[in-house]
Each structure stands twice: as C-alpha cells, then as structure tokens.
C-alpha cells in the first residue's frame, strides 16, 4: 500500500486530480463560512452582472451567485459519497456470498445482476424517484442500487479467484468458522480492487447526481445546489452567463479531478507499468520501415 501511495505521489495526473478535486472539496465544505451573503436573500437586480460588491453577479431572482455557489456543493458531495459507499457495502456482501455459495445461488445472483444491468442507470433511478418521491435519501439509495450489480460482479469475480487459493483451503482445514475466513482471509485480499472500484463509482455518482439535480430531483428549489443553479439560470444564459458558468465549472472541475485521481489509483492498483520512452513493437517496426526507405532514397540519390 505504501508503494502504491508513493507511486501516486509521483504521478503528475494524480497530483493534478488531487488539486482539482481538493480545491472543489474545500470550497464546498468551508464555502458556507466564507459566503458574504445569505444564499436565499434577494439582494440585487434580476440577472445583475458582476460588479461592485458582487463577484459573479445575481441570478434569476436577484440572489448573489457567489454565495449560492459556496453554499451549493455539499449536497452533491455527501450524496455521491454516500451512494458509492452504500453500493460498495451491499454489493460486496452479496458478491462475496455469491462467490462462496452453491452453484445455483451463484447463478441466480449473476442472472439478477444481468437483469438490473439491462436497465439504463438513469432510467431506473428516474422510474423509482418518479414513483416514490424525490427525497435525497431515496435518491441516494436508488443510485446505490443502480451501482450494486457492477459491484456484485466485481466482488464475486475476485472472491472466486481468492477462494481457490491454498491459504483459504488451509484456513478451512484448520476448522476456522466461515465468518473468520471471510473477514481475515478473503476480505483483505479483495479489498484493493473493491476500493479502486469505489473511486470509479464516485466519479459515476458525481455525474449522475449532478445530472439528477439538474433535472430537478434531489434538493428542493429554494436551497442552493450547483445542478439546480444551472437549470434555474439557463434561461438567462445570454444575459448573465456567470450564473450558469460558475456552477458548471465547479461540477466540471470536481468530476475531472475525481476522474484523474480514480484513473491513476486504478492504474497504480493494477500495477500497469508506464512504459516511458519505450515504443511499442509496431511503432519500432514503422520506424524501421521509414529508415529503410530513407536509406534506399539516399542510396538512389548517391548512385
């Protein structure tokens, strides 16, 4: 794990991602303390442009965009973190159980994930949200459920790989109870791919939840939320682009930062060597062909 961390520190992509995601994270968590005005107060003209006393202008009701921007990050943050952690927990439990249990249980679980994977994620969430209501915890749960099949597949696959190892056999022969084998033998050995997947799911969750709040599901309108702000001020895009551009930039930077981080983590986790300076065989060959051509031409011009 320490080697992974040190490799991450050396990876410029991870550093960039950390800088992006960290900045947005800090802005979202500490922003409400630094906001100059209330996010709900009507303090300026409708679609007022940036000027004295206001950094980013006013929105469609005359609220301060800068203050709303600083207040509006928390919901997306906690919802995406909660959704991916819940999905990881549920999926890991079911996946490990499927990997360990009898053949028909395993088949049933795999088939169930197939069925769920046939639903486009967003459609599944919208179907549930439209029927049961749009409370934040419900949306978090539904997004988690839509991620669970992927986690189950992953957890089952890696568990199957670990179960056939000798040390698990040895633990079984020594008569340890099953929960001890799962907790002390299997779980530590499948935690790396699962944690890498947590990072990937986090990036999906950010995209999906910001999209949902853009569509109007999640945080109820008077509150400040980045996705909601984009949708509210979309009509005034020509007059006051900052009211849309600022939350778009926040979501964009956060998504980009987490993606860069997740990618470099998963690369470090899977130990793919970065072949710096080494060209692929095909490339070398092409070079060879070109050189041969060049030599031939040189010979022709000489003769």
């Amino acid at each position: 794990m320490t080697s992974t961390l040190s490799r991450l520190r050396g990876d410029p992509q991870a550093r960039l991602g950390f800088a992006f995601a960290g900045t947005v994270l800090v802005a979202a968590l500490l922003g409400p303390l630094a906001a100059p005005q209330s996010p709900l107060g009507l303090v300026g003209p409708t679609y007022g442009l940036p000027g004295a006393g206001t950094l980013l202008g006013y929105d469609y009701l005359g609220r301060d965009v800068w203050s709303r921007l600083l207040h509006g990050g928390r919901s997306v943050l906690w919802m995406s973190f909660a959704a991916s952690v819940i999905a990881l927990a549920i999926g890991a439990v079911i996946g490990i159980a499927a990997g360990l249990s009898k053949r028909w249980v395993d088949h049933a679980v795999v088939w169930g994930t197939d069925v769920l994977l046939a639903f486009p994620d967003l459609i599944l969430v919208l179907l549930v949200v439209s029927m049961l209501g749009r409370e934040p915890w419900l949306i978090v749960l539904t997004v988690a459920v839509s991620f669970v099949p992927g986690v189950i597949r992953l957890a089952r696959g890696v568990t199957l790989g670990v179960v056939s190892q000798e040390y698990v056999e040895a633990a079984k022969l020594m008569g340890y109870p099953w929960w001890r084998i799962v907790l002390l033998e299997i779980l530590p050995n499948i935690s790396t791919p699962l944690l890498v997947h947590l990072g990937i799911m986090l990036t999906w969750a950010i995209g999906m939840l910001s999209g949902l709040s853009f569509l109007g599901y999640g945080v109820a309108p008077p509150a400040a939320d980045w996705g909601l702000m984009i949708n509210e001020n979309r009509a005034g895009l020509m007059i006051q682009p900052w009211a849309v551009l600022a939350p778009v930039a926040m979501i964009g930077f956060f998504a980009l930062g987490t993606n860069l981080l997740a990618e470099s983590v998963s690369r470090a986790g899977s130990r793919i060597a970065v072949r710096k300076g080494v060209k692929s065989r095909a490339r070398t060959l092409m070079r060879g062909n070109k050189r041969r051509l060049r030599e031939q031409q040189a010979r022709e011009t000489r003769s």
Partner: protein
Amino acid sequence: MATIYSEQTPPAAQASQTDDRAGEDTAHSLRQHLALPTWLPWLGGRVLSGLATAFVISVLVFAATQALPSDPARVILGPDATEDSIRILQHQLGLDQPILVQYARWAGRALTGEFGVSLDSNVPAGQIVADRFANSAALMVVVLVLAVPIAFFGGVVLAIRRDSRVDTWTMNGIILFKALPGFVLAIGLILLLSTTVFPILPAVSLIDPSTSPFLQPVYLVLPALTLILTVAPFLLRLVRSAMIETLEADYVAAARLRGIPERRVVWHHAVPNALVPVIQGIALISRMLLGGALIVEVVFSYPGIGNALNAAIELRDVPVIQAITLTMAVGVVLINLLADVATVLVTPKLRTSSRPRLRAGTRAKLKLKAGGV
C-alpha cells in the same frame, strides 16, 4: 533484424490463387452453415434468457408503478368524487382485482403496444412513444454512425502508436470528455457555439414534427455533437486497449516474423481479433445513449423519448412512464442479444462449438475497463 522483417510482396498470380481458394473456403463453410449452424441451440437458449429478462423487467416496471401511493381512480375523478363513482371506476379499470390478474391484463395489453391513455394529453401512450421514438432513433443513428468509425480508427491508430506523444496527449485529452457529465458538456457547447463565441447554431431544437429530423440537420448538430463527445472517448479507449492486447499476442509476432507487411498484420490479423470488445462496447454505448440522451434532450429541448419521459415524470403520467421505461429496457435487452450473437459470429472458436460459452460478465468487465459511463 532488417532482413528478417523485410517486406515480401507476393507475385500477383499467387495472390489471385489464394483469393480463389479463400472464395471456395467461404462457400464451403456457408454450405456447412446452411446444413448445420452449430450455434443454433445456443441462440435459442440466449433468446429464451432474453425473454426471461424482459419478463422480469416488465414485473419491475409494473411493481414500481404499483408502489404509487395515490389511487388512479381518485386521480382521474378529482378530489370531490363520491365513493360510489370511485368504486365504479375502480371496477371499470380493473383495480379491484387481485394484483396478479392486474399484471396479466397489463402485460397482455403491453405486448400489443397498448399502455392506456396518457393522463395528461388523452393520447394513447403507445402513440406518444412511437412519435417521439423516431426522433430519438434519428439522433442515435447519427451519433453511432459518426462516433463508431471515429473511435474505431482512432483507437487502432493510437494502439499502433502506443506511448508516443500523440497517444499520451490524446489519452489525456480524452479523460476531460469522459469526466464531464453530459449536461456540463452540452452547456459548454451552447456557450461556445450558440451564444457568446460563435453564435452559429440554435441552442434549442425546434424540430418540425411533420418532417423527418434528418431533413432539419441544424437542430441535430449540437445534441449529436454532445453525445458523440461523451460516447466516442469511451469506445476509443476500449478499442485502444483491445488492440494493444492483441498486438502483444504471439500470433501477431509470428505474423511479423513471417515477413508479412505491418499494414496487413494490423488490419488482417490483429483487428478481427480485437473486434469482440468493440462489439460489446457498441452495445454498452447504445445503453449509455438511451439513458444519457435523456439529459441532453432536456438541455436542448429535443423532442425525443427522453424528454417525453422527463415531462411524464413531472406530471406523474403513469401510462407514458410505463411505456417509455419498458421500451427502453427491452431495447437494451435486444441490443445485448444482438451484440452477443454478433460476438459469436465473429469469433470462430465460439461459432464452431456446439455450446458457445460467452464469458460471463464480459460487458460488466468492459465497462470497468473503459472507466464506465
């Protein structure tokens, strides 16, 4: 080294001879196919499993709409209807019958494309789906026709030039498009191309419903561009990693050692073997398009199926919601089925075995590999 790899162009006569033989071979295998396509039993099983999936999905959709706390009869008649009239309407709608009977009736009608009348506009829900579906399909076709070749050739070229400067810069740039959520990209494009910098394209797709969307390409450009930018990077990464894996295989090295020209090695030996992830990737893309198109359609007010679903959810228009979600999910099942059949057909090992075994979870693994939606 150079002597080993030197190109050997076969004489023209020899080439035509091999072509003839190849023609004979395909004819022979075709005849064999007509007599006994060995993978036919597998196809039957696969179709059955697809049907079972569709059945479970229909149960899910029906159950989700049953969870609605309000009573449809009460919604239709309004708040000040008498208990008697509500009971009569419940009887007429079949709401007083056991839930299994209700499901059977609903599924039977859904099979014939009849989902009931939209609560909002009094138009049959199936009609709404059919109208809007054509627009969405047009968008999907444009996106697939443009994105798949771009991603395919781009992926192959980048795999050949792996770790070169072009490759690293493209891959770094691609992360940007992969990371940004669809609506962020869409709004970025609106800001760039229809308001501030180059005001050349309409920000809202006001498609005339009486003619085909293909005849009004101005309105297709921005939604299609957004979707291509979200989908093509995903597929390109898949193609690139599949090609890199194939180019490292021993038979490619063997082909090179035999002195086969590099171009032929890439396009005749490596590409056909890298096709499976590409086909499954296209299936994944179509699934992403069905869901992801929703937000893009809402941003551009494109009159497609996703926009209709969003409007129906706002109004809690149950028949339309059922019709659209069921259509989409069954569409995904169908696409997956087609992708699996195509996979079996392009893989000789699977095509010729009597029990082709597609490795379970190929699609799920690919999704992880390419970094998902």
